[in-house]
């Protein structure tokens, strides 16, 4: 067990290094001078050189990379070119907003996905199964940014039930768990929950079908267990995998929230990324992608470890 943990941890380090390298290279993939957005078009060569030294773009690339990683390890991701504020502050503020949205969406998706998946797996090939499986296909096929638009059309534009955008009344991004704020959360969270719903439903259906086909289930029934008793055994066997899928989905939602955040003007990391891209704010772009990717790698690590702890069969294999 300990050996597994150490091996898994050691495997993560080079991946993190690679991820940092890719994030760093993004800036140099970009055509043109990285300072183009801050420099006035008629900037003198002197000013250009001064700024280049200030941002460290005049150093050799390996040195820039080493410096960037070293500062990032200490929590300093540089200064946003557009707002002149520390990138770390901007990213952290946004991450909290995205995390709130993603967690709520994952919970909704997980509950609905498990419901559909269990029903479909239990009554295999019945019409319930077909309906549930078809819903799951719809869930993974829908362009979620479009679904967001449709929900805004129905619930904001036609019914006036819910606000179309923002994270709170008056565009505030200070969160409170009151009704006014929760109203803003409903539509984006529902939109976001559709994909994990579809994926979890498909996974759970396959798991339940597989478990029900195993001999121990026949054994349990022969022993005289009620349907509920058998059901509990199925849940226990399906839980580790289902939870692992849920954990990974949370990571995908965090990293992939940009489209939904754009539709709902939700002040999270996706919104920040969007701004960074269109203002060509490269330190912000680099920093926010690094934070999201590292978060994703760590989440993968946690999910793997949790799954092994919950299901000792994996570590033994």
């Amino acid at each position: 067990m300990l050996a597994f943990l150490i091996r898994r941890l050691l495997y993560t380090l080079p991946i993190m290094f690679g991820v940092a390298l890719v994030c760093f290279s993004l800036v140099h993939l970009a055509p043109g001078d990285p300072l183009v957005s801050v420099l006035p078009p008629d900037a003198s060569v002197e000013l250009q050189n001064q700024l280049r030294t200030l941002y460290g773009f005049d150093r050799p690339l390996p040195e820039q990379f080493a410096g960037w990683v070293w500062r990032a390890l200490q929590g300093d991701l540089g200064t946003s070119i557009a707002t002149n504020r520390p990138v770390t502050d901007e990213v952290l503020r946004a991450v909290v907003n995205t995390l709130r949205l993603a967690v709520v969406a994952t919970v909704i998706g997980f509950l609905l996905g498990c419901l559909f998946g269990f029903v479909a797996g239990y009554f295999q090939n019945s019409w319930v199964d077909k309906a549930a499986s078809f819903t799951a296909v719809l869930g993974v096929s829908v362009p979620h940014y479009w679904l967001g638009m449709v929900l805004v059309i129905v619930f904001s534009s036609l019914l006036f039930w819910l606000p179309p955008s923002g994270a709170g009344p008056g565009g505030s991004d200070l969160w409170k768990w009151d009704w006014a704020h929760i109203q803003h959360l409903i539509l984006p969270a529902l939109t976001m929950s559709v994909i994990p719903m579809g994926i979890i439903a498909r996974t759970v259906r396959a798991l339940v079908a597989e478990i029900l086909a195993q001999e121990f289930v026949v054994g349990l029934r022969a022993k005289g267990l009620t349907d509920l008793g058998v059901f509990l055994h199925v849940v226990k066997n399906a839980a580790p995998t289902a939870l692992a899928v849920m954990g990974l989905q949370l990571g995908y939602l965090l990293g992939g929230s940009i489209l939904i955040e754009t539709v709902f003007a939700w002040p999270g990391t996706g919104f920040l990324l969007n701004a960074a891209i269109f203002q060509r704010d490269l330190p912000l772009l680099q920093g926010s992608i690094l934070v999201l990717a590292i978060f994703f790698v760590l989440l993968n690590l946690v999910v793997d470890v949790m799954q092994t702890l919950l299901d000792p069969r994996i570590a033994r294999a």
Partner: protein
Amino acid sequence: MLHVAVDPSKVPAVAFERSPGYWQTVGRRLLRDRVAMGAALVLLLLLVLAVFGPLLAPADPYKASMLSRLKPIGTPNFPLGTDELGRDMLSRLMVGARLSLFMGITPVVCAFVLGSMIGIVAGYAGGRTNTVVMRTIDVFYAFPSVLLAIALSGALGAGITNSLISLTVVFIPPIARVAESVTTQIRNRDFVEAARASGAGAFTIVRVHVLGNVLGPIFVYATSLVAVSMILASGLSFLGLGVKPPEPEWGLMLNTLRTAIYTQPWIAALPGVMIFATSIAFNLLSDGLRSAMEIKS
């Protein structure tokens, strides 16, 4: 979120002991699958639109008119209404099929070619080559797909080529992983051993004995990625990172029509219906293809 994780249930098993009529059997089983055939019919219609769209469209999809902006669905001459610049929606949706399908399918095709090459080389070579190649692939795999696509497009800048490049990069790692794992399964089989013993070189073995066995499963896996690719490609255009105006492309149309969701909400939602239909059809056809290949002897 849409992530292109390697889902083992999406990769059909390698059929080592295939009877001579294997592909005929797969074809026959697929033809009997009503859902898959329905999906195939939808895709065929879309393909017809993609090829002949400009000829079939009732009006010029680029012709704007300030007087007929945002006409509702059912207006004479404009059966599906007009967009925010007064262009005929029906024509734009029809002509848009070409660019939208091109943007969605091309990255998967490119990634299929490149990813298979990388995966087969890594899987067949084994040893240190395999470790180096696959660990590099792992780094790209460590990014959530949507984030990687947007980060690359954002860094490279908007445009058709850049959007195709970033999506190809997103799809190479999962395809390479699948290719590597099926190739590794083949490499230790007796017939490969026999070919090696009879003096065949690595290139000949890969061409004659490996490719024929691995391309089928990799291809079926790749088809399951097309739906995701369609959604992501349109998503990039939706963000303003893909196709540029005034080209008709469904994601971009969805973006420019966002201003109209309070005045003509159903017109604003139309391009998304096209993306949704395409993506469902690809998912159902890919599911059907995979179950047709699962032949139990």
